[in-house]
């Protein structure tokens, strides 16, 4: 049984004027435990909608979203979420207190949760920054807090919504490398939303390409048979890049035509 299944999911949003916008339709997808699944698509195609449905922040208009065979009925600590921006961080808590939040809500004793938070801050490379407030940290560091805060809860799965999109190119490349290393260590199942082909091929074990919205669904899925450290100049890497690029090219054009 797959860890996650989307079965013929439709999600319609109603605008203030009462007009229905079908963001995704006939969306079906299965994710196995241990995968690093990258969901790739042009902007406005409903990638984030899929993440919100799986996180339990929103309910599908029709169809089913299942985890371990049971319908998703709301947010749960089984599914840790890393958001794109930094507005999900608790600005009044220090880095380590942010990471401790989940265990603290469950009543884990202070010494134990401190120790666990410290371990995960070390995993994401934030040792020495424990006592700083989010406002005192750079964009990359704030995303590290988010990753540690989600992982310390030991979720069955990590949902990441374009977590590096707002970072500068150098920081982004560094964060991708470190996330790949973290994933090698933890092997937590990941659903990673991105619009960046390079990022998807760098990180993913499978890449799902979405069609341009509205009524978006999965156009195709590519298995990435690359192991360990991936190099952007490898022929194999470039081969995958090209394959994914050819799948998404028309969708991007359609998306831009619609926006313009």
């Amino acid at each position: 049984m797959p860890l996650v299944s989307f079965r013929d999911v439709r999600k319609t949003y109603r605008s203030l004027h009462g007009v229905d916008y079908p963001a995704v339709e006939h969306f079906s997808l299965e994710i196995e435990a241990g995968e690093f699944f990258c969901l790739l698509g042009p902007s406005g195609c409903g990638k984030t909608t899929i993440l919100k449905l799986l996180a339990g922040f929103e309910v599908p208009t029709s169809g089913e979203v299942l985890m371990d065979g049971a319908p998703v009925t709301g947010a749960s600590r089984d599914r840790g979420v890393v958001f794109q921006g930094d507005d999900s961080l608790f600005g009044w808590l220090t880095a380590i207190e942010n990471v401790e939040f989940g265990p603290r809500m469950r009543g884990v004793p202070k010494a134990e949760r401190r120790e666990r938070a410290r371990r995960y801050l070390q995993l994401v490379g934030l040792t020495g920054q424990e006592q700083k407030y989010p406002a005192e940290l750079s964009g990359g560091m704030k995303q590290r807090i988010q990753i540690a805060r989600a992982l310390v809860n030991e979720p069955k799965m990590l949902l990441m919504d374009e977590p590096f999109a707002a970072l500068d190119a150098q920081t982004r490349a560094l964060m991708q490398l470190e996330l790949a290393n973290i994933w090698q260590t933890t092997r937590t199942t990941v659903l990673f939303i991105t619009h960046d082909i390079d990022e998807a091929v760098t990180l993913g074990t499978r890449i799902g390409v979405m069609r341009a919205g509205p009524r978006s669904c999965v156009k195709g899925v590519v298995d990435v048979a690359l192991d360990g450290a991936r190099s952007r100049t490898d022929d194999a890497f470039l081969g995958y890049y090209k394959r994914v690029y050819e799948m998404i090219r028309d969708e991007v054009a359609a998306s831009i035509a619609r926006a313009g």
Partner: protein
Amino acid sequence: MRSHGLRGLWGAYGGYAIGFASLFVIWHLASVYLVSSVLFPPPTVVARKGIALLRNGVLLEHLGASIQRILAGFFAGSLLGIPIGLAMGSFRPLRRLLEPYTEFLRFIPSVAMITVAVIWFGIGEASKIFLIIYTTIFIVILNTAAGVSAIAPNKIRAAEALGATRAQIFLHVALPATVPYILTGMRLAMGNSFTTIVAAELIAANEGLGKMLWDGRMFMLVDDIFVSLVTLGLLGFAVDRMFRWSIYTFAGKYSPAT
């Protein structure tokens, strides 16, 4: 970036010192050379009178009466306003239910309520405290509710995905995220409390800074009037500084947006 010694102190407060000094210098020049009338005493005369009134206890009695009323009404109003504002910001039906009250009553100035307050509660403490509560509560409610609605939805979502219950989200996310708004509301309310207490004491009171102003007018004690005015200014300044300091201290980390 911490500054040290006298030079640091001067850097931090020098501008203030000059600003304040210039205020008194201009006042002095205006009253001695420009107006030159007993109706506009210079700061030296006012200071001397102030010291005399401090020594015989009259000033402290008036000051104490006004401060007590302000603090009692201000804290009661805030303690009522904060939970109501939090509840209104969190639950839309409750907001709809209570908004007619806040939106209607906040436009009736507390000064206009003085007559009603005196009829209902007499000229003693009760009417003054009622008026200060009245002037405090709506601003605090409005600011608190606005603070709750300004919380980034992703903060709530993140807390949900981390396993927090609704009650925990309220206590550990909504409340701290709203602190700067609450403090701002309280700061504005404190300013209004000064207006209200003076107006109320002008009309009906046995002691207080407002009563002192009224007596000064009745008995042509111009110096007393100025002592009362300066005291109000200094008191307001000191209290507002305390609020600014606490907002500054908390706002750095208790920010709703980031």
